[in-house]
C-alpha cells in the first residue's frame, strides 16, 4: 500500500511537471532541427512537434513500472496472445542452414516483451542461438525495466541482447545501412513524433529482403457493434483502470486518444509503401477484429 501510494505520489509529481508550457520539460530534449512552428498531435491535443517527444517520455516514465499489470487489465490478457502470434509469424531464428546469424532490432521494445519472445523462438523453438538482438527505446525508464527483466533469462539468451537508448527517427550510426534482417516495433510507432521519418530510417537499416514488422492498435471499423463496445471500454474503463491501478489517469487517457488518432490499417500500409517497402497481399493482418493489426513490409532488392 505504501509502495503504491508512493508510486502514485511520484506519478503525480511527474505529471505535474509534464510540460504543458515549454518551460518545465524534464524529459524533453528539444531537437533543434524541428521547425518550432510545426505541430503534431498528442492524444487529442495539438502541440508543437518539438514538445511531443518530451510529453511521450513523461507518459512512459509514469507507466513503466505498472506497464505489464496495466496491459493485462486493459486488454484482458489478450496482448500476450497478440505478441505471441506476432513473434511466431515472424519466426526469428528459422534459418537454413541452421545457425546462420540474424540481426534484429526491436524498436520501442524497452520492456523486452517482444525481444524475449523472439529470443525464446530462436533459441528454444528453432535451436538457433546465433541471433543478435538490439532492444532500442527512447525512454531510459522503460529500458531499465527491460534490463532488470532480462536478468531472469538464461545466460546464453542474455548474451544475445544489447540495449540501446535511441530515437527511432534518427537511429545512431552504430546501426549501419543495410545491416538488419528484422526490424520490429510493437505498440510503439503510434507515439513517434514523425512516423514517416521512422519508417524511412527502418528502410535504411534493413538489408534488402529484410522485414519491417509492426504490431499496433488499429481500427475496428468493419464491425460497428463491436466497435461501439470497444470504444466504450477504451474511453471509460481504461482511464479509470489507469487511475485505480497505476494512479495515473492522464497517461492512459493519452493512450486511448493516441490509439484513436492513429491512421487506419490501409492508411498506415500506404505509409509503409511510401517509405519504400513492398507489401504482400493486403499488407496487414487484423487481430481481434482490428483492435490491433500487424503490418509487414519487405525491403525490395532494388
Amino acid at each position, binding site marked *: 500500500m505504501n509502495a503504491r501510494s508512493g508510486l502514485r505520489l511520484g506519478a503525480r509529481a511527474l505529471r505535474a511537471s509534464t510540460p504543458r508550457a515549454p518551460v518545465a520539460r524534464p524529459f524533453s530534449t528539444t531537437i533543434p532541427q524541428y521547425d518550432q512552428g510545426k505541430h503534431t498531435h498528442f492524444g487529442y491535443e495539438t502541440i508543437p512537434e518539438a514538445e511531443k517527444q518530451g510529453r511521450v517520455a513523461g507518459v512512459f516514465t509514469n507507466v513503466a513500472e505498472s506497464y505489464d499489470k496495466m496491459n493485462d487489465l486493459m486488454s484482458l490478457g489478450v496482448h500476450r496472445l497478440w505478441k505471441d502470434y506476432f513473434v511466431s509469424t515472424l519466426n526469428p531464428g*528459422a534459418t537454413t542452414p541452421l545457425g546462420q546469424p540474424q540481426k534484429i532490432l526491436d524498436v520501442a521494445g524497452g520492456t523486452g516483451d517482444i525481444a524475449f519472445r523472439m529470443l525464446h523462438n530462436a533459441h528454444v523453438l528453432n535451436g538457433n542461438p546465433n541471433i543478435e538482438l538490439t532492444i532500442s527505446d527512447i525512454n531510459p525508464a522503460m529500458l531499465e525495466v527491460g534490463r532488470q527483466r532480462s536478468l531472469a533469462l538464461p545466460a546464453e539468451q542474455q548474451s544475445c541482447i544489447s540495449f540501446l537508448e535511441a530515437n527511432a527517427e534518427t537511429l545512431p550510426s552504430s546501426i549501419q545501412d543495410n545491416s538488419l534482417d528484422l526490424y520490429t516495433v510493437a505498440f510503439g510507432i503510434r507515439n513517434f513524433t514523425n512516423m514517416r521519418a521512422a519508417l524511412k530510417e527502418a528502410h535504411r537499416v534493413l538489408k534488402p529482403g*529484410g*522485414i519491417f514488422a509492426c504490431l499496433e492498435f488499429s481500427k475496428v471499423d468493419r464491425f460497428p457493434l463491436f466497435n461501439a463496445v470497444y470504444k466504450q471500454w477504451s474511453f471509460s474503463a481504461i482511464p479509470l483502470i489507469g487511475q485505480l491501478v497505476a494512479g495515473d489517469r492522464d497517461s492512459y487517457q493519452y493512450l486511448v486518444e493516441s490509439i484513436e488518432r492513429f491512421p487506419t490499417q490501409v492508411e498506415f*500500409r500506404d505509409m509503409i509503401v511510401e517509405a519504400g*517497402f513492398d*507489401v*504482400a497481399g493486403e499488407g496487414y493482418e487484423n487481430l481481434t477484429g482490428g483492435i490491433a493489426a500487424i503490418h509487414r513490409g519487405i525491403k525490395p532488392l532494388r
Partner: protein
Amino acid sequence: MATALPTRTATRCFRTTRPRTCNQHIHSRRAFHSYDHPPPPGPFGATETLILSAAYKHVPEHGFTHRALSLGACDAGLLDISPSALPDGAFSLIRYHLYTQRLALAAKSSHIFQGEDAPVGVGAKVTALTWERLMANREVIHQWQEALAVMAQPSHAPASLKELAMLSDEIWYLAGDTAVDPSWYTKRATLSMIYSSSELFMTNDHSPDYVETNKFLKRRLGEVQSVGGALGAIGQWVGFTASAGINVLRSKGARI
C-alpha cells in the same frame, strides 16, 4: 528509391505506388472476361512472386512448407526471414500453385484442341482440360495430401474454395461453354466436385501414368451426364404433363 516507383505501379499487391492510387482496392479483380482489355494483374506482387516462384522449385523435395519458402527466398537473393512478409505463410505457396496452374491451362488448351485427336464437343473438351489440370499436379502429388490439409483449415478454406470455383469456371470457359441458364451453376458445381474428388483419388494412385485416376475421372463425368440426362428427361416430362393438365382443365372451361 523514388526512381524505382513508377516501374512498380503495374503490380498492385506488392505496391510501391503513391497514396492516391493506394486507396484503390488492392486486389484489382474483374468479375468478367474481356477480349478488349488486358487481364488484371494477378494476386501476387513483384517481391512476392520472386519468393514464391523460387520457392516453388523446392516443393517437390520439401513440400508446401516454410522450409521451401525460405530456401526459395535465399535462392532469389533475399533473406531467410523474407517469407514472413507473406500473409498466409505456406498457404501462399499453395495458392501460387493453384493460380499459376489455372492460368497455364489457357495456353495448354490451344495445344490440346489442335491436331487430329482433338476432342470434339464441349463434354470431351471438359474431360480433356480437367485431365490436363490433374496432370499439372503430377510433380507435387506426393506433397498434395499435406497441401489439401492446409487448404481445408478454416482460415484458408474460403480462398481454396474460391480458387476451385475459378478453376471450374476456367475449364468450362475454355471448353467453349456459353450457356447462361441455371445450368451455369450446376455445371460449375458438379465439375468442382468431380475435380476435387479426382484430385484426392490421384494422391493415392500408384498406377502407371495415373490410368486409374483417368478411369475414375471418366466414370464420374459419365455419371453426371447420365444423371443430368435423367434429370433433364424428368424435368421435360413434368413440364409437359403440367402444361397438358392445364390445357385439359381449360378445355373443361376452367378460367386459368
